[in-house]
């Protein structure tokens, strides 16, 4: 069993919902998700973001769905940290 511990996403979203509401919606997908959102670029109608999601076992599809529901679009997965069950036992 491999768990996703941390992902860094490059996301394009409309100005609304705002960064706070956007982060909250992503964090509410899991019980222990920690979301760090950085606005990298602001255009007339859109914002480019770096979204860092960390948690014990991140459900990527649920995160993707939350982002899509708010009108956001994931451009790329820039960084991933995963951990296998065996290594977690060692830890």
């Amino acid at each position: 069993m491999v768990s996703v511990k941390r992902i860094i996403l490059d996301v394009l979203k409309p100005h609304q919902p705002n960064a706070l509401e956007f982060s909250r919606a992503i964090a509410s997908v899991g019980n222990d998700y920690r979301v760090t959102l950085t606005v990298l670029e602001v255009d007339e109608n859109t914002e480019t973001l770096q979204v860092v999601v960390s948690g014990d076992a991140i459900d990527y599809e649920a995160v993707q769905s939350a982002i899509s529901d708010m009108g956001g679009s994931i451009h790329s997965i820039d960084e991933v940290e995963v951990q296998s069950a065996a290594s977690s036992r060692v830890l």
Partner: protein
Amino acid sequence: MNLLGKARYLLRITRTHGIVRRYFVVNGFDGALTMLGIITGFLFGAPADLSVTINACLGAAIALGVSGMSSAYVSETAERRRALGDLEAAMAIDLLDTAHGEAARVVPLLIALVNGLAPLLLSLLIILPLWLAHAGLPLPVDPLHAAIMTALVLVFLLGVFLGRISGIAWLRSGLQTLLIALLTAALVYLVTGG
């Protein structure tokens, strides 16, 4: 998310709170002044049966409600579609199944409801003393005077509401709208009863 929370969310992401508020005040004011005009006309004109006054007011109130709903729905649907199209072009994706797509469908309905219900409900409140008198309930004042007083109070409250959202003194704003209502009544008097 409950229905009210959902409606607030959709209004927030489309930044249409201000439009809803503006429509409420503008069309509510329309409704109140129309009722004031009709009732003042009946007061200063030839005496008429109360049921005639009620029917005239009710007819105008329904027409204002339907007109408010349909005009706002048509114009806001076009506005929301255009805004969604602009956003889709900027995002280069289809947003129909997102909150923005839902907002483009639901927000025109919400705005239409506010735009239609504001004049209708305010008109019904103004007609209420006429109905009560017609139903045989004794009123301390003449029903036409009571309806005019109700209209003036509602117009004043709309002014107070405007003052509170614009940050100016509520009393000044209330008195301004009240003055407009009194001028309307005076004009009706000059034309119909003078």
